[in-house]
């Protein structure tokens, strides 16, 4: 997300969906990885599916107000 995107400018769909897309992709990778194996695979899965939670924390801390 570039700094030039101030809140009064219209955003393109591409810019609107950039972060949601990466969060969704990381979630899907996490969901599939846990199926593939244990140990390291599970750790990757937790990171992947943990991405929405990280985004949640980011939004609530920095974007709320």
């Amino acid at each position, binding site marked *: *997300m570039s700094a030039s995107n101030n*809140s009064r400018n219209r955003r393109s*769909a591409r810019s*609107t969906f950039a972060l949601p897309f990466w969060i969704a*992709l990381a979630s899907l990778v996490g969901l599939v990885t846990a199926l593939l194996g244990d140990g390291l695979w599970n750790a990757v899965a937790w990171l992947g599916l943990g991405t*929405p*939670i990280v985004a949640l924390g980011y939004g609530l801390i*920095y974007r709320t107000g």
Partner: protein
Amino acid sequence: MQQRTIRVWSGIHKWTSLICTIFMLMLCLTGLPLIFHDEIDAALDTHDWEPANPGGPMLSLDRILSVALDNQPGDKPIFMSFDKDRPVVNVTTAPTLEASEGAMHFASYDRTSGETVPDHESSFMAFILELHMNMFLGLPGMLFLGAMGLLLFLAIVSGVVLYAPFMRKLNFGTVRTGKTRRIKWLDLHNFFGVITVAWLSVVTLTGVVNTLATPIIDLWRTHSLADLIEGYENQSVPTPEEMASLDAAVKEAVEAAPDKTLQFVAFPGGQFSTDFHYGVFLQGKTSLTQHLITPALINARTGELSDIRGTPWYVKSLALSGPLHFGDYGGLPLKILWTILDLLTIIVLVSGLYLWASRRRPVTSEIREPTTTHSPSLTTSS
């Protein structure tokens, strides 16, 4: 996006959500304890059961089966499954082969003595599971919840489409707390909705597949196993007395697939086998293949192995839909993530209801570009 397009998607989002929300709330709430099914059952288990003869010789499966049938006179065998961590065999019998699940009899037996083992599943969890699966309405209830799942998926898709115009002038994750309560909840609804979208889509679609378990298994039996019963059409389903040794059948199946382990046996005439075969179901030993089951089909009269065959794609999809829906396949951290995402979904559902109930104007008025002012304020409702 055109105002009219937005109105159409908004209508789709509103109606699909309104119809399914109450059921989805029920599913999210009952799903919470189900995520920790294993932990809850383990905690409620009193651990006071021990095999009668620990380390002693195991009774044959044929012996256990005859004990089970003696305990339910007139019943026919349906399933036999095996506990992994203790010498216990679970036998399902039913008065008829067509009996519904509710009419079946389930009992666990100590393989070292043939005595019954007290039920260690909590009745509370069984109640929650039944409510979650079919609302005590059997197959129709299950299929109904599947239809509600499809509506939820439409609501998710339309929600993603509407996310663009709503967020046109907002940064990702923005929650405007300084304006009206409705704006705050609109932002939270959009934010929580968009970050949970992939997980919720997967859980929704795998849930829908799970509701189709009965038709999927029926399709598999009538299509994939059809060739095995050619020439047998006029024979009756073998009675337990007519069946060849179950132990020999299981041994044959396990030896024919050394890379797999025994999961359960489906008896002839039930849903998971033909009318004439033992279906000995084997599972892989790796993390991925343990979810995929492969049946060895053994002629129940002669004891001969007819075939071991992989299952078609739709049965594999059903098998993988289990873990992907339950979240029980990646350790406790995955279950905790499942819980948080479930709770976020509850907030999305409830805030969606609130946004609908507190609506004042058509949705397009909330995202219309102000023509006379540069104010970023998007809504006039308060």
